[in-house]
């Protein structure tokens, strides 16, 4: 096309001017889209969430999920505001893995509330910032009422934390014993990745996940060491321990793919392929001479080299993939070899204690037992079908990260919406008490301040309300400010009789407490911490680190969006 226009006539295509939208948040189109996104993500939040199917409508595979990373990746919008929120939340998820939907829903609620209360945007921004600081300050306090200290002497609280993450995704379709089992497996895997002998710098190990479709969830298990997919008909004699290992990160396919692009000149009659193959076989000879018994390669190995090595009693595994390289290096202590033109120094060899074959359903795996202390383990995850298995894998990876975060900050927040209602009550009370100081610092009127604080608190409560999807109503008790759900099919008279414990399970229903509907106004009060002799036994716990960060991300993203004056789009 370009050539054409040059030869025949010069054609100038006029560039269309950029489109500038003034005050995007007051456009009804943007508001509608934000509302749609909020409803969409809200309905995917929590253990009784509604799922979403992601597909391309031309017969591609269908992904069913309610995980923020999957959903946010799938929704792409032409509206820059939506894209801004999306990428901000995705960035949080990529770092903390958990609380993505919390951040998204909270952020969108804040924006909607801000629009409804009709205050000046700069006041909203200032008050939001102030209240965020109030929240994070409270959460960091020793006597914070919605925080529990994790007890590493027993695995119970870790298991509870893991189970809360795992059971928050209904796509996994887990029964009670199944989620208990998976939680235990996840905690066990986490514990195996914590090294026992701590040198100067602590380095956590890795969990490698292997999925097997068509088996019961209860067959999921953890193994110390690594499980590698085996090539067909591999047989080996008993090998004496320890086994020397060599690990290649370059392709041993016998091609010249690693030398990069460009034109190569060569003399006629030169057979490059056979020369490289000779080189490979030379390599094989050296490796054999050095007593290597396990020959691993990230990429392809030339079949002739494989054949040669196998004939000499070496176990050869190719196409390991880049994700297994790091765990393999940690497990074996081998240095990955990236050349085939130099002799291999003996220092790059690693070793494993032993290998054995394990059969999981249709998959045959080679189990590498570490030679010494290691923090590498393999987790076998089983489920009945692919959809559930994929979600289970995602949720287990999230759990792993959440458990790791507890090492940094050994706390958890009360789950089931209790943290949100508690924080809302705290902020409401605090902002009223310290109104005069705050307003003078922030430079706004008291009415403005109260309205903005109410928007903030109501947004927090809306997140707690979002946990309910079957028409139930949310309540708050006026003592501890925990979150309660009243099922839609229970009448007021039966209320006391049927009411289960609060969302996180800490407060029992039998205690005589006044409750208020979350959507009605209640008199401000300072939420009382629970005073019990024993540590709190919550049934639902959320990740402290992830949630605190999510809170910050949500408020800052909302503030950023509120601050947008113009949207300029290049439409060319």
């Amino acid at each position: 096309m370009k050539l054409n226009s040059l030869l025949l006539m010069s054609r100038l295509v006029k560039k269309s001017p950029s489109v500038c939208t003034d005050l995007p948040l007051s456009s009804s189109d943007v508001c509608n889209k934000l509302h749609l996104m909020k409803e969409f993500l809200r309905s995917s939040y929590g253990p009784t969430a509604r799922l979403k199917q992601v597909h391309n409508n031309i017969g591609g595979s269908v992904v069913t999920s309610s995980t923020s990373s999957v959903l946010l990746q799938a929704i792409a919008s032409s509206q820059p505001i939506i894209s801004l929120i999306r990428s901000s939340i995705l960035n949080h998820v990529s770092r903390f893995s958990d609380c993505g939907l919390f951040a998204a829903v909270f952020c969108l609620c804040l924006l909607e509330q801000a629009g409804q209360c009709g205050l000046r945007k700069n006041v909203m921004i200032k008050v939001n910032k102030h209240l965020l600081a109030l929240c994070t300050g409270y959460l960091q306090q020793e006597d914070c009422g919605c925080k529990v200290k994790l007890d590493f002497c027993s695995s119970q609280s870790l298991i509870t934390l893991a189970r809360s993450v795992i059971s928050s995704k209904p796509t996994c379709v887990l029964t009670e014993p199944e989620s208990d089992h998976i939680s235990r497996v996840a905690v066990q895997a986490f514990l195996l990745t914590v090294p026992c002998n701590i040198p100067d710098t602590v380095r956590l190990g890795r969990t490698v996940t292997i999925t097997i479709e068509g088996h019961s969830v209860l067959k999921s298990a953890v193994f110390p060491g690594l499980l590698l997919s085996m090539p067909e008909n591999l047989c080996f004699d008993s090998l004496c321990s320890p086994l020397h290992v060599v690990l290649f990160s370059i392709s041993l396919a016998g091609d010249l793919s690693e030398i990069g692009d460009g034109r190569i000149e060569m003399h006629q009659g030169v057979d490059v392929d056979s020369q490289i193959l000779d080189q490979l076989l030379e390599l094989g000879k050296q490796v054999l001479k050095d007593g290597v018994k396990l020959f691993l390669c990230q990429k392809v190995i030339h079949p002739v080299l494989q054949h040669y090595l196998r004939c000499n009693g070496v176990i050869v595994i190719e196409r390991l993939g880049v994700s297994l390289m790091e765990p393999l290096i940690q497990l074996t202590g081998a240095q990955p070899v990236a050349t085939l033109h130099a002799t291999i120094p003996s220092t790059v060899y690693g070793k494993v204690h032993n290998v054995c074959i394990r059969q999981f359903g249709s998959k045959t795996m080679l189990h590498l037992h570490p030679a010494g202390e290691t923090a590498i383990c393999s987790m076998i995850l089983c489920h009945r079908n692919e959809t559930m298995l994929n979600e289970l894998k995602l949720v287990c990876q999230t759990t792993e990260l959440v458990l790791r975060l507890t090492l940094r900050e050994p706390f958890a927040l009360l789950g089931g919406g209790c943290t949100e209602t508690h924080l809302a009550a705290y902020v409401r009370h605090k902002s009223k008490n310290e109104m005069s100081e705050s307003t003078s610092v922030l430079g706004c009127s008291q009415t403005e301040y109260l309205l903005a604080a109410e928007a903030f608190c109501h947004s927090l409560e809306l997140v707690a309300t979002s946990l309910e999807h079957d028409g139930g109503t949310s309540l708050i008790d006026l003592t501890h400010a925990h979150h309660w759900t009243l099922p839609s099919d229970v009448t007021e008279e039966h209320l006391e009789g049927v009411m289960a414990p609060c969302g996180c399970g800490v407060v029992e229903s039998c205690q005589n407490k006044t409750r208020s509907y979350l959507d009605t106004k209640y008199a401000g009060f300072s939420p009382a911490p629970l005073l019990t002799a024993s540590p709190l036994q919550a049934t639902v716990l959320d990740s402290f680190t992830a949630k605190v960060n999510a809170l910050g991300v949500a408020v800052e993203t909302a503030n950023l969006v509120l601050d947008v004056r113009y949207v300029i789009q290049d439409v060319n």
Partner: protein
Amino acid sequence: MLESVIINSRQHVGLQKVSALAGRFRSSIGPIKNYKFIQDEVSGESVLVCSCFRIIENLEPTCAVGQLVYETVQAHHKGYRSGSGCLLFLAGAWSRTALDCLQRGIAVTHIIKAMSEGIDICLDVCKKSSVLFKDIAGMHKRTATPQDLGLQLSEEAITNASKEAANVHDKCLNMSGQRRVKLSRHFCEAKSEMLSSALLPDLLELPDVAVLAESLSHGCEDAMKLAVEAVQMLSKMNQQDISDPSFDISKVQTCVLPGLPEDCACVVEGCVFLLSDEQARVAHRIKQQPLKVALVTGDLSQTYRHLGFKSLSGVGVCEHLDLSASSKEDEWLEKVVNRLLNLKVNLILTAGLASQKVIQHCCRHHILVVEKVNSSVLRIIASSTGAVPVSYATQLAEPCVGNGINVEIWRDLSSYERESSTAVNISNGRNGGLVTAVITSCIHGKLQALEDQFWACAYRLHHALKDRALLPGAGGTEVLCVHQLQKQAEYHRVEDSKTGSAANLYRGLVLQLMADGLIDYISAVMVSTGRFSAAEARTIVSKQLQDFHKDEIITGKFLQLILESRREDAVFSAGKPDEALTVKIYDNLSVKQEAWRKALDLVFLVLQTDAEIITGTGQRTEENLMRL
């Protein structure tokens, strides 16, 4: 782009779609299947299909729910090769159950909880009513003399089963929970029985495969006959321990030969390949003598490179270019043939392709080249002949060559097909070999269905031998489940009225609706036998169920009714009424459990879904779409 369909919870579109899709299979479930044509309106091509799996495969659903249904059925088919119809039907029926519950305003979480309880009841009934092999063997022994006794015995077994099933509930009420009611020999702990039979291999406790096959054939007698032949041939070849029969499906192959009449179908040792005239001449020369064999996993050509090899694009050769590609190929060919001759290899099997030139060249040296050999066949031949598969023919060396394989001319097909071809049979007749079922038909379009039927039967036998137990067939298990579900529903209703608790509020109703789904399934199967109208079938089922509740002893009658109808079908097909009379119908335990479980999992996923995200830029003009 986000386009989401917000589904009105009272009229769940996804569930309606599953139900509608499943409705298309209503006439295709059960043992008697009619062929269907599926025509592509665009290309005008049509296919003849018979099984539910092939129908959904050819329908190519594009909507998200349809795709999900297809993926589920595909996963089931991969492992079981039968039961897809049952899965589809129940997914539809239970979708309607869920829809019904939604319409009555029951919350999704309650529906899921109650339906999970329902499937647990059903799977428990399956476990408890499964008939162990030794009982089947026992029954068969007794049937050998008076012919009617067999049926009575089986009825007795089933009646006992229902008695026990009814007792499960009573046991729940029994506060002590310690007293074990043991009415029947079928209801001891299944585990311990299997263990004991494994420890004390008693030949009397194992039924003949032919007997099993008869009760599992479900209307595919011819295909089942082939499957039985395959089992027997494999166990003879591999000198299997008779006390531990199993059926290794991986050692069975099928070979489809169009043109021959259907009664030519048979099972042969080894594998069968079609050869061209030229290859056939070599085969004639080397037949009936032990041969040396080489196995190649790649293509037989000079230009072939293994998977993962990247050829260089920017290679230039300086100096003059006189060595053309063809002479390079000749050089390679020379080298390969010389190597084969040195190794005295007469037969070369390749998983890839071989160029015409290679085949011709080899033929000249009396080396038979067979291409496109299944890689699992290569593996089995490798392990039985001691050959080592290599990627390149140039890699071949003495240790890679296998011994003792035979080529026989199986049949000259020149008279049936326009192109003359010969089928040869390659086998080594030793331990660890494989068998091939040759499937034939004069009608080309039927071959796929016949092959599917064979695999369905083979997998049924495989799973039966693996499970070591069978389920009462012909709707028997379903009736027991319906009974148990209804009983539990009644129990919940009574509990509700007593306590008025919300926990049990809907469970009774959901269980009742689930049972209705199963009743629908039973009557649909009865209708598809062609002997009942829909109304008749429903009346019979509900009447019998009423009687069943009143007096559990006469359950046998209901089963008998279905059994009779099936027997009359058998009369039509087999033509020997005496023989047909003794046939009892059984179902596979694991196949049924898995199909039910998968159907309900599918319903759960769809039930919980309220929106779909359509990615990509495809233009769609549907009504309830929202764009982000």
